[in-house]
């Protein structure tokens, strides 16, 4: 088989997959806003009584409250993106470009921050702010939302910005200086273009993540500051108004799409044409004062998740705990009670999340590495599609998949096998892994690919040359997909077959009915599972990168 045929074949297979699991669900999503009922394409074609209407879009575009929710959502998302970027920059710089000690520890601390389900963090915060009153403003306000969502976004931003710093090849900067270019000019013409891919990826990811977040605004957004996801959720699950809910969400989706398309098509213009390679010659900042300041700062930010973990741990072992610093009585019964009802949940969570992690990496690998190699065409379209579905909140992905595939032809897969839930996890979070791998792959010098090709392209060469270079992206991507799947509630409740309840599902069920200790116990088990996996992979990531430097 020649390369051209292989390319057509691979591209076709890949787009068929994307068509089924991204385009059809998205089409069903927009269709719901035009017919006012869920059911997807299959149901629409089968039923003659369903008529297309624009009245839901008319409602959304004419009612001031709907319009305000769109405006407020954009305002909040931009603010969160900006603030989390500013707060993350020093940490990422320290992690990548200095000899700061305790790097792995800080990475694990931040990783913990994304391992705690949002609904647990919310309850923690509500308890703390009720009892301690530590915030100078109401938690139920724009500033409350900004605080909570910025804290939640920092770990993501740090990951992407760190990858950007990792890819900075200092030889290019030195070359610039050697040619007599001023420092300022070098910064804008050389340094920034090299950093931008990672920065912009971080901005886009955090922006999309914030627009799609549901649990925080659902509890915190005051009526005077309506947020689209929360308002649509109430429209959908309290009033069963599918038309208004999806019309509102699809307006937000269109805004997100324009951001994604602008991002995708301007990558080159932003200076993403990497002429160098990996940061083979990293210049580490060894200034002790700067390192000490950065270490203290990183530890303070890194300690925020640790405080959340401590609260979670105390709640998991508590019998009585309100209005005191620590629980007044402890018990182990919460674990017994929770695991008695959800005995298969730890296995279910692991199987589903690991599968989603691997699948996401496989698909992201094809859409980044194979497109770079020219074997799969249409990179821009792939990028746009994966980011669009990523911008939907997990519960909307669940609903969209369910209404697309729960019909008499495909229902078997939804109802019995955990295939739909794995695909829901994968495609709902593929934005993470694709962005992470894209940063790694795009930073590799084209000459290296050619060298690998010339050397016969054996699997060993691939393993020895390419894999170490993209391993940080693979690990970050896998971890993000895995961890976010472990704590997923929205997609799980909609798509998991009934004997595949996960830890996060059980935890949410307990917490939402006031059984916080049992919910915290299951939340803590998620962390106990995540922690060694995360620690090992961060250790591997460091080692691999080190090896890459030697190569």
């Amino acid at each position: 088989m020649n390369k051209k045929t292989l390319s057509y074949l691979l591209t076709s297979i890949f787009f068929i997959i994307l068509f089924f699991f991204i385009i059809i669900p998205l089409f069903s999503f927009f269709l719901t806003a035009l017919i006012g009922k869920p059911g997807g394409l299959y149901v629409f074609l089968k039923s003659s009584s369903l008529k297309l209407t624009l009245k839901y879009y008319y409602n959304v575009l004419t009612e001031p409250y709907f319009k305000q929710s769109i405006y407020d959502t954009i305002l909040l998302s931009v603010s969160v993106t900006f603030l989390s970027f500013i707060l993350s920059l020093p940490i990422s710089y320290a992690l990548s470009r200095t000899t700061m000690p305790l790097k792995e520890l800080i990475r694990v601390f931040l990783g913990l921050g994304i391992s705690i389900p949002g609904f647990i963090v919310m309850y923690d915060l509500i308890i703390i702010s009720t009892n301690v009153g530590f915030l100078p403003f109401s938690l139920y306000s724009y500033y409350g939302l900004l605080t909570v969502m910025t804290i939640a976004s920092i770990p993501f931003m740090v990951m992407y910005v760190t990858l950007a710093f990792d890819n900075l090849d200092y030889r290019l900067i030195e070359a610039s200086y050697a040619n007599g270019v001023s420092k300022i000019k070098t910064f804008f013409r050389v340094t920034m273009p090299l950093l931008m891919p990672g920065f912009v990826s971080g901005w886009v990811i955090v922006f999309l993540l914030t627009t799609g977040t549901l649990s925080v605004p659902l509890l915190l957004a005051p009526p005077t500051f309506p947020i689209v996801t929360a308002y649509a959720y109430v429209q959908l699950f309290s009033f069963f108004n599918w038309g208004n809910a999806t019309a509102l969400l699809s307006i937000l989706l269109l805004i997100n799409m324009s951001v994604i398309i602008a991002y995708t098509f301007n990558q080159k213009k932003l200076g993403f044409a990497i002429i160098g390679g990996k940061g083979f010659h990293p210049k580490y900042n060894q200034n002790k004062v700067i390192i000490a300041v950065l270490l203290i700062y990183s530890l303070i930010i890194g300690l925020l998740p640790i405080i959340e973990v401590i609260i979670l741990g105390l709640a998991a072992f508590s019998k009585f705990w309100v209005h005191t610093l620590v629980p007044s009585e402890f018990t182990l019964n919460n674990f017994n009670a929770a695991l008695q009802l959800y005995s298969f949940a730890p296995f279910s969570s692991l199987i589903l999340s690991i599968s989603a992690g691997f699948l996401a990496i496989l698909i992201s690998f094809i859409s980044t590495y194979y497109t770079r190699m020219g074997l799969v065409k249409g990179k821009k379209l792939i990028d746009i599609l994966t980011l669009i579905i990523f911008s939907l909140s997990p519960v909307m992905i669940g609903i969209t998949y369910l209404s697309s595939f729960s019909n008499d032809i495909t229902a078997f897969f939804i109802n019995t096998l955990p295939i739909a839930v794995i695909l829901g996890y994968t495609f709902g979070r593929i934005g993470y892994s694709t962005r992470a791998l894209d940063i790694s792959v795009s930073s590799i010098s084209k000459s290296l690919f050619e060298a690998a090709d010339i050397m016969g392209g054996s699997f060993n060469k691939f393993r020895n040359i390419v894999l170490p270079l993209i391993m940080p992206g693979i690990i970050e991507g896998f971890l993000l997909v895995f961890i976010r799947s472990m704590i997923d509630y929205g997609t799980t409740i909609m798509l998991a077959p009934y004997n595949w309840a996960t830890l996060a599902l059980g935890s949410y069920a307990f917490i939402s009915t006031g059984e916080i200790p049992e919910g915290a116990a299951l939340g803590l088990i998620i962390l106990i599972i995540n922690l060694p996996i995360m620690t090992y992979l961060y250790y591997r990531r460091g080692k691999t990168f080190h090896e890459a430097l030697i190569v």
Partner: protein
Amino acid sequence: MKPAISRIAIAIVIIVIILAAIGGVYYYYYQMQQASQRVVVIYADYSANVAQPYFNNFTADTGIKVVPLYASMGELVGKLVAEKSSPVADVLFGGAPSAYIGADEQGVLASYIPPAVKNDQTYLNAKSLYSSDWTWYSFTYNILGIIINTQQMSKYNLPMPKSWWDLLNPVYKGHIIIENPSTSTTTGLGFFALIWQIYISKYGVQNGTAAFENYVKNFMSNVVSPITPDDEHAETVLGQSTDGAAITIDWINAAPLYKMLNGYPLQAILVNDNILGPTAMGIVNGAPHMKAAEAYVNWVFSYQGQKLIPTVFLKPAIIYNNITPPGDFPPLSVEEQMAFPYNQTFTTQYANQIDSIFNQYSSLVQTSSLILVFSSSTVKYGNINMPVFSVPSLNLNAMLIPTQKEPLFFVYLNWLFSPTTEGTILSTLPGSFAGHLMSTLISLITPSTAILASASLEKHE
């Protein structure tokens, strides 16, 4: 790169074959399971710790295994609607009738007349307990009340509140916690709707609304900020309180329930001007295990199923006489004993009263946001003088009839309870749209309010 690609391709083919094999075996197993009716999938708007013992009893009695999914009513109904083409669940269990009306409109509930109530004229006469097409039916009910933490009440030397109006007393400042009324059936559609309706019944729409908003302002100044996201959270904070939180508003079974589950020192106080809130269930349209679903519904209405309702859910049974709580049931207050008529049930006479009132206003159900029906008669219980109209043992003088425009009331509450406007509720709202929204809502909500009388109002003013 070709060998690498070939290896990946081979690996993918092998994985696909393995997955197909597993899928085949699973499919066979699934078909076998579908064929059997020994399983019933129940979507339950309940806490797992509470409902699981009830399900276990059903399994012990019938041999049918219950596979539950515990979540909020909105999410469960949303899921039912999305999987309508190929249903997974058999029964929707728990939650207020208003949610069932919404679910029924989406066509996810099947019509089924449980034989146990088919010939029970008492039940049949209480038409607000079930839908006319039998897509949902209430199996228990509840009464709104004030829940107190007895230890905190003593510690802070707080007087026992005896009415909704007592809660305005500044002595309770910082001692009341409530769940967010903007999203809550309990405090929003229940408590505040009740207070509002009482005021407009006395003063008319405009002045009554102003008086209600004044009540809200004074009441909220006694409430600990921030309000909790749900009543379960409010009960947890109240039950574990060591620092002054002593009072909340909830359905009164919460007190014995949390006393039983967690040992919280809670007690329910039943007050005048109250609301009955039924809890319903229904069979899912196209339920995969239809026979098992019917068996479950029939069991809930059976003597055995009804007998367990007081002990498991700590709510009254809705049919069958002589159902008494077991010996280890937590000691009940006088008010709780009155509220839970374990040894009584609806009588035809009282059911007829409900029926006639309901029928008078049934046409409004389609167009109203909410209907509260008030009583003109009073009955004396111990030292409490209670206006009642329906079941004397229930001490009710208002009944909440679920309607299709309930959501509008929540929009109004959302506007009213904006935390940023707390304390200055009426005067300083920004923007003209809020005022426009407000007047539109009032006009939509109020004309259909059904007021029979308001005997109890006089003494509040």
